[in-house]
């Protein structure tokens, strides 16, 4: 249990990389990159977790009444998710542009075109 979240994060990262390397469709590759990003969220939040603690949000509990988890990593992850989504959008825009210019979204065919 003490290392399980870290191992899951590593597993998700590796499986995402595998999908990225073996992908035959650039849209699928962008999805695999999103999977890789998930690994960073899992890792960051696992680092900040504390047993028996609750969220550091004091709108409905008294400050100091319960132990709280680490807010710094949560803030990092939070912005990461929204910015990650727009970066995904940018990559998808690139894929659309590639499909327009070369008529395919298969990385292997693209390599042949380049010669």
């Amino acid at each position: 249990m003490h290392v399980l979240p870290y191992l899951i994060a590593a597993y998700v990262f590796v499986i995402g990389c595998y999908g990225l390397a073996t992908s035959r469709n650039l849209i699928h590759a962008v999805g695999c990159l999103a999977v890789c990003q998930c690994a960073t969220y899992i890792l960051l939040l696992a680092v900040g977790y504390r047993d028996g603690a609750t969220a550091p949000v004091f709108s409905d509990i008294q400050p100091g009444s319960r132990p709280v988890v680490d807010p710094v990593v949560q803030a990092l992850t939070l912005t990461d998710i929204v910015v990650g989504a727009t970066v995904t959008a940018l990559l998808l825009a690139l894929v659309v542009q590639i499909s327009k210019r070369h008529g395919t979204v298969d990385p292997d065919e693209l390599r042949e075109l380049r010669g």
Partner: protein
Amino acid sequence: MADAVVVIALLLVAGAATAAVVNRDPVRQALVLSVLGTALAVLFTVDQAPDVGLSQLAVGSALTPLLIMLAVRKVRRRPAESGEDGEK
């Protein structure tokens, strides 16, 4: 008890990530990514990070699927010569 639910959420995320990689068709992958987003939101909630969970739900439930599906639609509307299945 709290640990058990964390383990369940972690295993669901790992399963969803695997499914998202092995489904090679972008449309099917988008469906799995949507479920992966929901599983991640559950994981973030049990990790006591509701802010992050909200962020994931806002992005993963509608925005990412919409972006991927629009990209798929645009790519598939290419002329039939490219080998993609064209307009229905």
